[in-house]
């Protein structure tokens, strides 16, 4: 991260009263829209939304690590896997002959998975602390390969490559996420809250918690320590920051975020199953790179940027096929510009264009657009 000093996202509190009011009003409007959406959107679009939120949680973690603390990581996919597997094991039914499970309640499983992922991140700290920049990036890639191998070597834990294991659906106080719309006894304004709607609210809650925690930390003491370590390790040390601890800590936090995103991935895909190749799949190299793309496209270090980046990088590829594949169209031939081909083009081009025209990502764009409003009093 040789250029991280130009990273976006350091908090610049605005002074303007209207700016503040506008911000609160904007946040309120956003909350209204997000709460109301499940009542209007069809299931597949809710799926797109929950997938974006899954990406957002992971991206928030990575932007803390890479954007705020300046440590490049391509291991996010691995920690997603750790989180997903931990959840599947902790909350999996005990006594299953094929798969190891502890039969813990989903909430405990969720917290446990986040914790275990964080510890896994902390365990990597002796290595991550020694390395910098792209070396750390590629070194962390080793974890993805290790995870790919471990996942398949331990089928009783990670689910067999053959059919995988089912992650326990989330439920709390007898209220389960996994209820079909037809059987749902819970409804709002005549709209029954089925699996997709409930998942949306659960994911919204998790994303909000992840966001607010990150926001509090970034604007407080931990955030200052991260940026200090990013910008000048020696100066940070002299001012009382334990660089080793801060680096290990932020790696652990980022991994915990990834772990949560991993649990969300397992719920979302409905299966816990190791990937078929190290490149493609839910926990592989491509996913790790996608997370990096999210935070760069969003603006390194910026929390709203990470969310927007996730919406783009995770959202676009799943949303475009829904939009472009009309009910009557045939698949066409092998060299056709199929919807997936078009999706990939759009995705690639967007990344190129954003970096070409707004190197500090969507956060930079936001600052440029909102800058004048912020300055006014």
């Amino acid at each position, binding site marked *: 991260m040789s250029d*991280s000093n130009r990273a976006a996202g350091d908090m610049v509190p605005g002074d303007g009263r209207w700016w503040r009011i506008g911000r609160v009003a904007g946040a309120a409007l956003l909350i209204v829209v997000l709460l109301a959406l499940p009542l209007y959107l069809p299931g597949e679009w809710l799926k797109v939304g929950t997938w974006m939120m899954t990406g957002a949680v992971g991206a928030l973690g990575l932007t803390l690590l890479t954007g705020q603390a300046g440590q490049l990581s391509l291991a996010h996919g691995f920690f997603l896997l750790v989180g997903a597997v931990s959840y599947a094991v902790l909350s999996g039914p005990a006594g299953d002959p094929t798969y190891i499970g502890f039969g813990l309640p989903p909430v405990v499983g969720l917290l446990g998975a986040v914790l275990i992922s964080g510890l896994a991140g902390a365990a990597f700290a002796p290595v991550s602390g020694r390395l910098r920049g792209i070396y750390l990036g590629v070194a962390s890639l080793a974890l993805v390969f290790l995870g790919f191998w471990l996942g398949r070597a331990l089928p009783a834990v990670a689910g067999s490559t053959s059919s995988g294991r089912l992650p326990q659906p989330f439920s709390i106080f007898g209220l389960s996420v996994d209820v079909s719309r037809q059987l749902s006894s819970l409804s709002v304004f005549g709209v029954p809250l089925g699996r997709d709607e409930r998942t949306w609210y659960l994911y919204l809650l998790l994303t909000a918690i992840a966001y607010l925690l990150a926001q509090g930390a970034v604007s407080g003491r931990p955030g200052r320590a991260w940026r200090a370590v990013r910008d000048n390790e020696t100066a940070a040390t002299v001012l009382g920051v334990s660089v080793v601890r801060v680096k290990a800590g932020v790696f652990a936090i980022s991994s915990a975020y990834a772990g949560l995103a991993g649990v969300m991935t397992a719920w979302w895909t409905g299966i816990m199953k190791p990937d078929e190749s190290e490149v493609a799949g839910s926990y592989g190299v491509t996913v790790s790179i996608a997370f990096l793309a999210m935070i760069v496209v969003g603006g390194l270090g910026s929390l709203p940027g990470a969310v927007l980046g996730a919406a783009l990088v995770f959202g676009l590829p799943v949303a475009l096929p829904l939009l472009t594949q009309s009910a009557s169209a045939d698949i066409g031939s092998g060299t056709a510009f199929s919807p997936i081909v078009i999706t990939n083009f759009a995705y690639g081009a967007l990344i190129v264009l954003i970096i070409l025209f707004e190197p500090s990502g969507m956060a930079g764009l936001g600052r440029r657009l909102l800058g004048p409003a912020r300055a006014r009093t």
Partner: protein
Amino acid sequence: MQTFLQVLINGTGKGAIFALLALGFVIIFKATEVVNFAHGSLALAGGYVVAVLKPMVGWWSAAAAGITAAAVLALVIERLLLARARNASDTSLAILTIGVDVLVLTEVVRRLGTEASPFLGDPYDVKPLTLGDVTVGRSEVVALAVSVVLITAFFAAFRFSPWGVAMRAQSENREAAALMGIRSSRVTASAWAVGGALAGIAVLFLATQDFSGGGLSQATHGVALAAFPAAIIGGLTSPGGAVLGGFVVGLTEAMTAQYVDLDFAKVAVYLVMLLVLVVRPSGLFGRVVQARV
């Protein structure tokens, strides 16, 4: 013993190709500090040109055209995109190359369609040489010879030619080089072109029955990913390290597959890399950057 020799030869042959890929990767990194995630795509695009032209103009001309195409594509990426994204950080530029990679990969795979994956190694593919009990894929022998020649040529040029001096000067200190009248844009562009050409050469071996077992396809792109650990093991700033790293990766993969576990081979490569990095955080021959107060 016979098995060991066979494994050694398998690993060395692969290592030669990884060395070519990693060398190109390192040249690009040295000149521009950009981690080129589109390296696999450069190889793929060059290979596609070979595949298309081969039936029309024959293998030799097609190969030349393919290598040129890969070089030109690299040049275009640098001139058209990277050189214009002036204010972007190195990380952002790396992500930009991911965008390019997605574009090129998607288009080449689309064009390849459902036909049989084209194989590019006509003059040498599937014509094994037998030395006693050991068989050697001719592709591997040719690859090794080509790599040795190219790598030697590269090092000679790097050491003695004005281009090499300019390149080394710029990679060490961009500003000082500019102040010596070295045209940064030319050095950068030529580095990308050379990196691209090396990828274009590597693909002639990547898409063979002997080497990767498959023709030109999406999987070719995946194999090119091995250039990453190879370049890192050697140290991103060291061309010599890249070559060594290539062979380390090739041999580690082959040895692990035979003596530890077939499936563990790829992980082993990364674990070796991790081990190297823990001992030497900038790779075997990489430059250590010291932060100062």
